[in-house]
């Protein structure tokens, strides 16, 4: 096995083992962190399928995450307030809905977006995501701007998602399955055409492939996986607001993919782990400085609100100076 495969296996084993250990040793907070990381990693892996392998820079991936979460929240809402049947809390219904809605949305918008190239594509995917954002904001029944509390988590036979460890387990298994699935896709004939179209679209078309269809299918698969991740995210946060589908979230997902390394299987997972840990470390260290200033100088400044400042600077520095992301660093040593 290559060095890359070993690192992938080691990272995935660490992600499986560490969070439960933290949980059993009384650090439940770190399990929560790991669950969020794992769910976002699923979304990042799905984005990487089109962004990394397909070269399609989608800036609207947060919309799929949000739609998936609302596919859990809305049936749960009607179950509680309108007394529709218990099917409305069934996890298979939630996931089915999430996948159906997001793949339909991806099919319709993808069919339009993929007619365009380059910077048009970036802006259009962004605009369609914003359209969903404004649509949700305008529907007052589901909380509009304020968001919607998800009163009951999805119910699966033999699984209780109210238990943090079981929710993490579901997210982790899903991540592994999605990684294997994406790996299979990109190494198939389909994936080869997708990557060929990224390299040189005209040549691939000349070879007789209708790249539009290939890209559209990849776009729909990617959207459906992100929708699934959204359903998990809804179960994790038990609260969903339009904020979740803001373009900031889309930008953060893109950052995870770039940070980890595009067009690699493990990259997006490393990227989301680095992102979540970075956020945590920045907030923690700013809080620490806050206490220090308060203790020594008696200054009361809430610094932890401003973690986006060092974060944004880091983002700029990484874009300017780090090529190929974290996986790029790993691969470079191999040469």
């Amino acid at each position, binding site marked *: 096995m290559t060095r890359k495969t070993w690192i992938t296996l080691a990272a995935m084993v660490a992600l499986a083992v560490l969070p439960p250990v933290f949980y059993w040793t009384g650090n439940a907070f770190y399990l929560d962190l790991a669950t969020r990381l794992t769910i976002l990693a699923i979304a990042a892996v799905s984005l990487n399928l089109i962004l990394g392998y397909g070269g399609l820079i989608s800036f609207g991936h947060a919309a799929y995450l949000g739609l998936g979460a609302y596919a859990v929240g809305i049936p749960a809402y009607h179950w509680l307030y309108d007394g529709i049947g218990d099917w409305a809390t069934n996890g298979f219904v939630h996931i089915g809905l999430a996948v159906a809605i997001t793949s339909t949305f991806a099919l319709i918008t993808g069919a339009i977006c993929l*007619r365009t190239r380059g*910077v048009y594509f970036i802006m259009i995917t962004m605009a*369609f995501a914003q359209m969903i954002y404004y649509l949700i904001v305008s529907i007052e029944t589901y909380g509009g701007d304020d968001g919607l509390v998800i009163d009951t988590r999805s119910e699966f036979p033999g699984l209780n998602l109210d238990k943090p460890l079981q929710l993490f387990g579901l997210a982790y298994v899903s991540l592994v399955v999605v990684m294997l699935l994406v790996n299979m896709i990109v190494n198939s004939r389909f994936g080869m055409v997708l990557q060929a179209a990224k390299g040189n679209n005209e040549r691939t078309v000349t070879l007789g492939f209708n790249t539009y269809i290939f890209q559209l299918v990849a776009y729909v698969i990617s959207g459906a996986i992100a929708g699934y991740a959204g359903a998990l995210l809804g179960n994790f946060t038990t609260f969903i607001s339009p904020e979740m589908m803001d373009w900031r979230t889309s930008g953060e997902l893109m950052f995870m993919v770039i940070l980890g390394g595009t067009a690699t299987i493990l990259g997006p997972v490393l990227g989301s782990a680095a992102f979540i840990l970075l956020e945590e470390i920045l907030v923690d260290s700013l809080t620490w400085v806050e206490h220090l200033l308060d203790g020594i100088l008696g200054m009361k400044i809430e610094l932890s609100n401003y973690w*986006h400042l060092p974060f*944004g600077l880091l983002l700029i520095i990484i874009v300017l100076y780090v090529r190929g992301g974290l996986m790029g660093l790993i691969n470079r040593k191999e040469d």
Partner: protein
Amino acid sequence: MDLSLLVIQMLNGLQLGLLLFLVASGLTLVFGILDFVNLAHGALYMLGAFFCATLTFALGNFLLAVFVSIPIMAAVGWVLERVLARPLYARDHLDHVLGTFGAILVIDTLVHLIWGPEGIQVPLPDYLEGQVPLWGDVVVPTFRLLIIGAGLGAAGLLFWLVNYTRLGMLIRAGASNRTMVSALGINIEMLFALVFALGAALAGLAGMLIAPITEASIGMGNNIIITAFVVIIVGGIGSMKGAFIAALLIGLIDTLGRSFLDDIFKFAMSTEAAETSAPAVSAMLIYIIMAAVLAFRPQGLFPPKVR
């Protein structure tokens, strides 16, 4: 639907359209000439509003504050070009997007740090607070007329600058073939920085003009930038004429949709259904129009001739 409301809403739509044009023209200039995707353009719009707010309080006069803020914004654009944009020109669009996304986070947080989380209400001088009667009982706030006037004035100035001056000639030449312009002995880096500064000043001006109506607030730029994207996509990226026509179109459609769509829907469905569906549809209206335009013309309505 009564006529005076229609006239007022048309004027509001015109006002929104002109503000959109000020933001979109900078975006389309920077993209058309520099091939640079600047997400942080909305942050410049926000900065314009905040500078103007502070200067209004410091100088005691809104109009004076606007005139002082415009060169400040141009300077901010100049610095942003030097620090962030220039190293990224040679990279692909993905790096532009991420780099300027980082810039948004930095600028938003800096504004939060300096001006606090609350928005700032910008006071107007008395002579701008009043209303102007149009006819009968139809009145329009003076300030909105000023926005429309300033927007039209800026658009005219820009049109003159791009089409009838030496600088504009260089800008157009740079958009067609920047290597050739550079080979002819023009300092292309200086030209790029000027274009960036011009775009920043225009976006800043839009922020200053809207500040007395909505107040200067964090995140105001992020809302308008996506609408500005819709404008330049519909108009054709890189086209000034397209940006102008699409901005007015989007401004009018958005404003009229929000106020009259429920009335229109009532012809086709029950009152209750119309009142629930109209807000949702009007929120999505401009995106639906964008999708419709793209379905027939993927390059937008007025794609620039040479690219």
